[in-house]
């Protein structure tokens, strides 16, 4: 009989009676389709990384030359360093702020729905336009930030033109943009922690701070895991903000890896080299993610008893 498939239930029991399934609609076929779609461009990139390609002519095979070139390139290592510096500036601050906001909005404050919406609004803007607005804010002479600082008699630096402050400025913009978004995930995680855990602890005499560290954080660890993994991956690939606001400058102070990849591919037309750079970024992200998986695997609390 065509189109029938045995659906075996893994209960260690005997197989149940066969069920009619439409082959094309099964999730398995789904996955096969997607595997094809997602992996094809990635495979192309991997392959390209071994070629030299100026886009105008056909690619020429050069083996590992792209990789040896990038390993010996000072600007590559600098890029890597700048990217990690950015991730360090960005992620901890963003995570702490998002958690703080989530904790605050987890209370039964009237009007919390409005606050929740307003905090997510930064995430919705077109990166190009918001990057420009932030450029205005950071403008050393006419910008809002330095004007605000001058009220307290603090001389503001040249922000985006200052080698020391350009990267923190970019990090600040991204924190602004994504804190609200991350807050949503934490909020949901918090809301699924039952009240009576806290009440029990309170009765036992635990302070709010202790309750946070012994109950909230552990129970939040699965959420934390998801948020950290996806955030670090996204953050290491920062591009839009740098492209709009500093174009990698001043000098190479904000020359993050993804911006370099873009430059190599679309401004210098070294598509093969850009692919190799992308592969290296991928490798680093893979290692970091695996480290996180191992860290969280042993520490994630599923059950307080």
């Amino acid at each position, binding site marked *: 009989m065509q189109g029938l498939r045995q659906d075996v239930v893994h209960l260690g029991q005997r197989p149940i009676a066969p069920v009619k399934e439409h082959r094309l609609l099964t999730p398995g076929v789904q996955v096969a389709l997607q595997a094809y779609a997602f992996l094809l461009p990635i495979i192309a990139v991997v392959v390209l990384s071994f070629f*030299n*390609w100026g*886009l105008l002519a056909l690619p020429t095979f050069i083996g590992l030359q792209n990789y040896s070139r990038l390993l010996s390139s000072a600007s590559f290592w600098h890029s890597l360093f700048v990217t990690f510096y950015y991730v360090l500036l960005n992620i901890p601050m963003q995570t702490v702020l998002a958690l703080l906001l989530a904790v605050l909005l987890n209370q039964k404050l009237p009007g919390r729905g409005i606050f929740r919406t307003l905090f997510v609004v930064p995430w919705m803007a077109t990166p190009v336009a918001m990057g420009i607005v932030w450029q205005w804010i950071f403008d050393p002479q006419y910008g809002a930030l330095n004007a605000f600082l001058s009220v307290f008699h603090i001389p503001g630096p040249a922000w985006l033109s200052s080698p020391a402050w350009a990267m923190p400025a970019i990090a600040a913009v991204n924190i602004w943009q994504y804190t609200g978004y991350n807050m949503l995930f934490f909020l949901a995680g918090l809301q699924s922690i039952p009240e009576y855990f806290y009440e029990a602890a309170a009765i036992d005499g635990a302070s709010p701070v202790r309750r946070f560290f012994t109950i909230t954080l552990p129970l939040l660890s699965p959420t934390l895991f998801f948020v950290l993994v996806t955030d670090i991956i996204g953050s290491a690939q920062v591009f839009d903000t740098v492209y709009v606001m*500093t174009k990698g*400058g001043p000098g190479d102070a904000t020359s993050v890896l993804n911006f370099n990849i873009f430059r190599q591919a679309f*401004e*210098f*037309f*070294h598509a093969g080299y850009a692919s190799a750079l992308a592969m290296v970024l991928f490798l680093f992200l893979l290692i970091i993610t695996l480290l996180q998986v191992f860290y969280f695997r042993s520490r994630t609390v599923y059950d307080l008893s």
Partner: protein
Amino acid sequence: MKHNTWYRPLRTMSRGPLSNGPRSQSSWRPLGLIAVGLVVMMMSMTLAACGGGGSSSSGGNGVVNLTYALWDQNEEVGYKQSIAQFMKLHPNIHVTIQQTPWDQYWQKLNTEFAAGNAPDVFWDHQAYFPQFVQQQQLMNLSSLIQQDKVDMSQYYPTLVKEWTYNNNVYGLPKDWDTIAILYNKQIFQKMGLASPTSLTWKPTDGGTFLQLAQKLTVDQNSKHPGDAGFDAKHINQYGFVSENTGQEGYWNFIAMNGGTILDKPFGQNFQFNQPQSVQALQFDVDLINKYHVSPSATETNNNSGVAEQLFEGGHAAMIAAGSWELSAVSQQSNFPWGVAQLPAGSEGVMSVFNGLTDAIYAKTQHPKEAWELEKWLASSESQHIMGSGGYVWPAIQNEDQSFVEFWQKKNIDVSAYLKEAQGKTVTFPITLGYNEASIKINDIFNQMYLGQIPVQQAANQAVQQANEAVQSASSGS
């Protein structure tokens, strides 16, 4: 595979596993309706737009569809008129104009080259010409020119030379531009100053140009640079805008001081770290950081159009602008303004002289029709439309008058540009890999203009990195 869920959700299911409660169905309904509506909309739009895809194609009735790519939105208005005319004369050819802003134009074009899908005819620029021509993406027009007896003598000879490679021509010149000073007549009148003609500049003391700029620079307490109590952080009006730009900025000064940018066309040695070039760069940077007649580079770095906007807002008395900017400036300024030649250096007045051509994609599917379009855009009829609309100086020497007349009607004398074009000029530096080199130079010069790196050091670094970029490009990287 571990199957532990970390804890069971407290809200267990209130309804049975297989029951389809009315609540679940009705809560899906509005979403379902929206989804269905969207799918219908999607299908109808797909069917409608399905035909309009791909680059050039032949429609029914033997109509050939050509795509024409450009970046300037202002000039696009003029070109639409010109192309409408063309389509009337050639009813079997339909041209679709694709406009992409400068920043993204080249990314898109090169991606299209990579895919073998570039527009049939497109605006070409000296910065990218070497790469395109070497990689055989441009159609060689020499035989077609001979065949159709196109009169090449009607164009400015420099332009034709610029677009010739290995004795073959790769584009018919359609316009030219030089750089001149735009000045705000209202400010000059108010301050009782004579118009800025016959200015000079010297690396040592800045010449009459600097003197004038200092008189024109005013801070919020009406003080000038050099006065006691002059506050460089609160300037209301700048005398001039000096910024990190080659074509509209330091290339002109370098040439006027006897320096060079590149050793020769398609050369691999940049020369702007030689003494005469460094002097010119120092002068340009000093206008900002030493003499304070120009705004800080924090305002102008990586921001194109700041000079024009300061000028249009009445905050800069003089700027250096290419002739292609005239219509944009005119639209945005509401005060009388004029054009003057650049200040003269030790070599006299020299300006960068450049021009664009339309290139035909080597792999176009409609070479004959593309050539017709090319000929049209390079013809005196089309160039008359562009010149008399005040968009650009036409590449055909006889048509220059139409451009002059357009601006005369607006009371603006643009002959300064023409005088410079007919005088000593310097061409755009072209070489393979120039694009990458110029980006590297730009990054270092950003810091130089900020005053973070001394000029000679910046020039040395820039020359070194630019040479590396150019050499690796030539070695086929």
